[in-house]
Structures are given as C-alpha cells and as structure tokens.
C-alpha cells in the first residue's frame, strides 16, 4: 500500500481534467412524433444486463420497470402519447413543465427545460423554504413554480387530454421484529453480505482500474474492503482533508487504506480551490443542494478521473440501514421536542425538519411576509406526516422517508450528476434498488440495536475491517465551514449573498445581513452551515441570471 498527499489549490485544479456538462435529455409532447430517448447506466433486470434503450422501452411497455435495478431516465414518444420514466430510487432526474409556451415539455435538468420550453422562471417560496430546511428540495416541487420533478420510481404519461403520473416502485413492507428469531437474524446478516458482494461483482469491470472515495466512516470502508477483495488487486482510494488547522478523519481513512492495502491518496483542499469550483459545481446540479460536501465531492471525482473510470462510494448506508438522525428523533419521541409548543400539530414532522440542523427554525426570520404566507398555505410538515402514518415502525418510517427524500433528491442525483460532469461513472453498491428492497424489509432492531446504529450492516462486514472502524461512533465528514466563514471565505460570502442572485422578494435581506455579520444568536448558531446553504443557493441561481 502506498499513501500520497496532494494539495489541491486553484492551480492544481486547473490542471485536472476539465468537467463537462453531460448531454441533456429534453423534448416536448407533440402528436405524431415517434422516438425513444434516454440514458442508462448499470441497469439490470434479474440476471439480464440492459444494454439498450429499446430493451428498456420493452420493459416499460410490459409494465415491468419495477424490476429494473440501475440508473435510467427514459422518454418514449408515440404518435398519441409521451411516456416519461425515472429509475426506481432516483439516480437520474427528469423535470417537466406541463404548461410551458412550448406545451408539455421535459428535460433531465431544469436549466435545459427553462431554456427550451420558455417556462416561467418565477421562483416558488415553498420550495425555497424546503431547501432552507433540508438543504435539498424533496418531492415534486422545484425551485421554479412552473417546473415539476418526476418522482423516482414513477412514470408520467402525457396525451392530448392531459398528463398522469403513476408510481411503479414502492419500498416493500417492513418485517415485524416479533417474527424474527436469532437464526433468521443471522441468516439476514449473511444474506446482506452475499447481496453486497453480488452487487459489487455485477458492477465491477476487472479489466479496469477502480477508485473509491474513503472517508474512514463505516460505509465507505465497507465498500473499499469489498471492492478490493472482488478486484483482487489494490484499488485507488481517495480521502479529503481541508488543511492542518481543521479537524479531519485521516487517521481513520489511512487505517482502512493500510488494512486493505489500497493505493491511497489524500487530497488537501484549500478554501481557494473550493471557491474556484463553486459555480461550476452548482451549475452541474439539476436542483440546488446545500450540503457543504458537494464541492469537495465534485473535485474528488475530477481527481479520481486521473486514476480510474469508475468511482465507488459508500453512499446510502445511513438512510437505508438506520444511521444518525434516528436517535435524536427517538429522543424527541420520548421527551418531546423543546422547540415544539404543546399545541402545535405535526410534532414529528417538525422534529424531522429540525433534525437536518439547517434553517427550519429560522424560516420566520429569513423569509419575507409574502413568502411566509405562501408557505403557510401548504405547510411543509404535511408532506412528512404520511410517512409516519404508513404502518412502519418509527425507525422504519424514518428509513423510508430518508431513502425516498434524501436518496432520490439529494444523494443519488448529486453523485450521478457530479461524477458524469467529471467524466467518471459512480458506483454506489450500498444504494441500489436491490439493497434498498433488502433494507426496507429488515425489522427496526436490525437497524438500530440499543445505541448501535446500522447494526446489520456492521455485522455483515465485521470480519473485513478493524473493530476500531466498525465500532467507532459516527462523526460525519466535517467540512470546516465555520472556520471558512469566520475567515478566508467571509468577504466572498458577503459579496455573493448581499450583491448576488438571491431573490429578495422571498428572502429577507436584513436577516441575511445579520447572518453574514455574525449577529446570529443561540447556543449553537451554526452560522457557517447557514451561510454555505445560502452561498450554494446563490451559486445555483447565478446560472439563471
């Protein structure tokens, strides 16, 4: 195993392979047109690999899309109708504008859709409130009032009479803890290991070099260990750090790299490199994502392209197998949430938004009165409540909402869009349809066991990794946004937020000024996270100005 350290500043960034926008899928409904367009990546149905759009169309025509594992977006134009389809769990995106000047229009990203359809660019305050609360926009709504997102696992059929959406994939029901014995539990853990190994085998090209991102957390470590074993030779692993002055996870990622024997590269990202990639990265995203790791992820993909055509990652372990954010929700369930007044409705939904630790509790100060009135017409909480009423256990319901919301609107599209832009293909073996189905069936006790999160996943790979990695508490990959926005990036943030593309008919400028000026009160103001959220939004909106 070898370990190298690369400092990635602006100059290094310029020397990396350039990122390019993937060709967009777009069109409009017009009678008489026949065509099949779309994209596929790593698609299978049963043991069969799907190699062409025409085969995917056959499967769609037979109403068997629910059996397809992999990433796809599909548009089938027939003389009297248009059918759109998006993969089961949301790797690839599709957006549509039902009443644009060009008629019913669709595209794989919003910018293409607006440019080609002439749809209105009026922003939707409710979607913006959702973004400020979650750092992504869940559900059908998008930042633009007249643009909708086709949900993962859905088809949309458009005819002269209108359009109709239909769900073709649902998460299977959860097993009851009562029906599980010690033996069935051991069997499930063995089955999970077999499933992960098979998923990696099916997606691995042994002739090609392989790279993997490695944070040192359990999820990426599992993937690295399994891929290295399947590959039979060292793979390239990449970790990120942000300079010696900030906390990092390098101790853990290097431990894993040494343990499996990978060719390990540590990429030190400077604040200047982050700044230089900011607008480019957000322009590659179909919808805004305010997670501070988005830009580091994008740079890592570009760096990985020098090493291998495929980049493996550990995305999905948290939402599928009962990762962090579940315990705070359990505590809120036990004790109540101190921020919820006793007479407020939807306490679970409010706690769920609050658990994102973004700006849910600041909406009343950040949004204008007009925007708040628009949000009040259809409160955000209403979208969360059904998940808690669907018959799953509490932890099962949290898993379901995390898979559908965060998986399909944040994690998977982000990985897909940023890796495509960098010219590499993403492989997320913990977040495939078959693994989602497996995890959905697991009883809650195999996700959260006592205070141990992701119990089944950890037990399935215990022999592959040092116990220090398997049993270490979750710490999360930290991006030093607090330090950046108290120091080197603050002037830039001020300029961007107060003089950039933020919509002042929806956002209250005085509140943004107070945030930038450090006049944010509270025990843990999390100012850096909030500034990043707005910087990412401004960066995304820039491309539309």
């Amino acid at each position: 195993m070898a370990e190298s350290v690369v400092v990635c500043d602006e100059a290094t960034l310029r020397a990396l392979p350039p990122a390019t926008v993937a060709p967009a899928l777009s069109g409009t409904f017009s009678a008489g047109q026949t065509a099949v367009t779309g994209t596929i990546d790593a698609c299978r149905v049963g043991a069969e690999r799907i190699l062409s759009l025409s085969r995917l169309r056959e499967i769609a025509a037979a109403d068997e899309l629910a059996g397809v594992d992999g990433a796809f977006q599909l548009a089938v134009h027939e003389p009297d109708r248009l059918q759109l389809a998006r993969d089961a769990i949301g790797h690839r995106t599709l957006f549509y504008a039902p009443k644009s000047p060009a008629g019913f229009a669709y595209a794989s990203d919003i910018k293409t859709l607006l440019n080609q359809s002439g749809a209105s660019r009026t922003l939707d305050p409710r979607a913006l409130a959702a973004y400020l609360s979650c750092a992504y926009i869940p559900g059908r709504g998008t930042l633009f009032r007249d643009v909708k997102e086709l949900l993962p696992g859905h088809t949309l059929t458009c005819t002269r009479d209108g359009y109709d959406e239909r769900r073709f994939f649902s998460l299977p029901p959860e097993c009851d803890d009562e029906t599980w014995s010690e033996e069935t539990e051991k069997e499930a853990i063995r089955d999970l290991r077999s499933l992960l190994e098979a998923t990696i085998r099916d997606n691995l090209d042994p002739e090609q070099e392989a790279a993997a991102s490695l944070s040192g957390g359990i999820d990426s470590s599992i993937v690295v260990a399994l891929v290295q074993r399947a590959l039979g030779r060292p793979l390239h692993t990449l970790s990120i750090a942000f300079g010696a002055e900030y906390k990092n996870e390098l101790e853990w990622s290097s431990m894993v790299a040494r343990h499996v024997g990978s060719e390990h590269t540590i990429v030190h990202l400077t604040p200047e490199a982050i700044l230089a990639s900011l607008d480019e990265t957000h322009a590659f995203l179909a919808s805004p994502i305010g997670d501070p790791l988005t830009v580091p992820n994008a740079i890592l993909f570009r760096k990985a392209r020098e090493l291998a055509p495929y980049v493996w990652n550990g995305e999905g372990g948290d939402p599928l197998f009962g990762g962090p954010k579940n315990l705070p929700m359990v505590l809120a369930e036990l004790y109540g949430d101190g921020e919820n007044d006793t007479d407020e409705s939807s306490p679970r939904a409010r706690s769920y938004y609050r658990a994102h630790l973004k700006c849910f509790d600041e909406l009343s100060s950040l949004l204008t009165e007009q925007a708040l009135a628009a949000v009040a017409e259809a409160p955000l909480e209403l979208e969360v409540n059904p998940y808690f009423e669907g018959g799953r256990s509490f932890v099962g319901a949290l898993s379901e909402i995390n898979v559908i919301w965060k998986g399909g609107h944040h994690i998977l599209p982000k990985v897909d869009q940023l890796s495509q832009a960098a010219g590499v293909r993403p492989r997320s073996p913990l977040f495939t349809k078959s693994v989602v189905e497996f995890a959905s069936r697991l009883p809650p006790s195999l996700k959260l066991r006592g205070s141990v999160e992701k119990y089944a996943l950890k037990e399935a790979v215990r022999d592959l990794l040092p116990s220090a990695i398997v049993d270490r508490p979750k710490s999360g990959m930290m991006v030093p946004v607090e330090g950046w926005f108290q120091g080197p990036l603050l002037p830039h943030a001020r300029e961007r937020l107060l003089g950039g593309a933020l919509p002042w008919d929806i956002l209250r400028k005085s509140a943004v000024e107070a945030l930038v000026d450090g006049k944010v009160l509270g025990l843990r103001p999390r100012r850096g996270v909030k500034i990043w959220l707005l910087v990412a939004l401004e960066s995304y909106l820039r491309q539309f100005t």
Partner: protein
Amino acid sequence: MKCIKCQTDSKYSERSGGTCPKCRARFAFEPKSGDPFTDPAFAAAIDRVSAHDAVRFTHTNLYYELARAGRRTNAKKVVFLAIGFLGLVLGTLAAVGSGSIALLVVALAVAVSGIVLGLRAKPNPTPALTQPTFSSLLDKWSAAHGTPSKLVQRAAPASATGRKAPLAKELATYSFDRAVICDRPETVDLLLANNFHFENNCAILSVTGYPEAVFGPVLEMLRRNPKIEVYALHDASAEGHELARKLATSPEWFRGIGRVTDVGILVKHAARLRGLWSASRQTTPRAFGDLTAEENAWLSVYALELAAIRPEQVIKRLFRAMTQPGTQVTTDDGGIFFVGGSFGGSDVGTSDGGGDSFG
C-alpha cells in the same frame, strides 16, 4: 423611569396611572411605591438570563438573575463608602475652618476606615430578594408586558410528562450514548426546553425520578449501553456533592456500566457567588473526606443552586464536558467517576458544519 416600549424618560408626576406619558404603555413597576426594580432593570435581567432572547430559562434562573443585580448594589459596601467619603469631605472642611489638626486626623481616620471597610465589605451570603417577592414581581411584569418569551412555562415537554399512549415497545429497545442526570427536575426541564437532548443525542433524567412517564424505560435503555457516558449535573450542596459517586456506585444506576463525569457546581466554585447562596438542606451535617474542613463547614450551612448560573453557561459547560475528558476520582467505596473542568472558560458551542454524506 424609561418606558421600555418607546424609551421615553418620565418623571413620577408624569406617569400617573402607571402608564408612559408618550405611548401610554403600562409600567409594571413603580420604584416610588416600593418596587425594588424599574421596568428597564427587570427587562435587562431577562435579556441577560436569556442571552439576548436566545436561551430558555426557568423561574429560578430569573430569580437569581435579579438577586445578582441586588448583589451588585451591596448595601453594606455603599454605606461604608458613603461614610468614608463624607468623613473625608466634611472632616477636611471642618479642619480647614477651625484650623484643628486633631480634627483633621480624626476625619482622615474615619474616612480611611470607611473606605477600607467599604471596599472589603462582602455581600450578604444569601439574596435579599425573597421568593414570594420575586413571584409577585414576575406576576406584575407579566400582567404589564406579557410572560417572557423564553421563560420555561411548563414541566418537561408534554410527551414526557403526560403521554397519551404507552411508550412504543420498539422505542424501549433502543439506547443512547450519553445521559445527563440532574439532581433537580427543574434542571431537566431547562435542558429539555432548550432541546439539549435533541441536539446532543442525549437522554436527560433527574435522580429523583423525573420525568415520571419515561423515567423507568429511559433508565433501562441507558443501562443497556455498556459504554454509556453519564454526566452528573447538580447544585453545590451535600446532596449534589454525592451525586456522581452515587451514580457510579449504585447498582440501581450505573455501577460497572459506562463512565460517570461530575459536571455540577463544586463547593470550591461557590465562593465567588456569595450573595446567591441558599440555606443548606442538610439536617445532620456530614463531613466529606475529599473536602477541606472549611468546605465541609460551608456545606453544613449553605448551598449554591445550579440555577444561580446562567443557563447559557450551564449548557456550554455541558458541551465542553462532552468533548473533553475529565479527571478521574476514586471513591472510598471503590467507585470511579470523573470530574469535568470548571464553569467558565472558552466555549465549545460552535459547530464545524459537517457534510451529510461522503464516501
């Protein structure tokens, strides 16, 4: 007195009927009628205890904040200093007028004694403000200006005190990595109201069995984690001094399980908060082997409630304790617990903004 609504300063004769002559807003207090605070002073206390309306606080927190204001205006100190300065001025004038050196010496002696005694005068050990007076002041304030927005109005959130449905069996199987065990239910309420449990992944209970509706199940959940980190948060009192040891050694709590850290107020912390002390609740004074004779003597007479510390400081201290290891203490009966750092010091309450997913 200034109106807290429009900032207009008015004389007593101008605010007949207890209202501001300009904006007609009602005053809560009238110092001329014997109220010990003005409206602006009471508002300032609320602002301080709530860290500028950012932190929730209990009735007792506000009581001590007002008592702290009284402590600053220490009557003994004022009287002695006044005697000293008056002695100096009047004595000098009299001596100059009469030409008497003896008078001048006496005047200077009175002045120096007054000033020295004034500077060295300690406040009374306990607050002059009584609880009934405070309650009546708060009622007056609330009637004029509304209840302070960050005042903890209720006991522990509804689901913990009055669950409509029994605790789901599923929830009872989980556990947590951390717990704060308090000596008073009121501290539990304070932490829950500030969402400390939610933001820090941390269960909270009182040693007295509060909140009743979840106490048993939560304690069972905590005892299920062999690596549980327990933080004992308490008054500087005989009972508080024993809390960490009790948690670390009692089979009903965490004997042989996890690690207990004492993050409460230690007796040695109490000296600088003289004036906010309360009477000891000990009926039979005990001598603790790990305390000095002076500390044991203090404990036999006094206590210092945790509520005398501003909530912001208490919560930040907990943040710190959860990120910094304490010092190990071995008790006489073989128990081991840890003592966290002292109150004050740098804040660790900043987040470094984790990303959601990577790798």
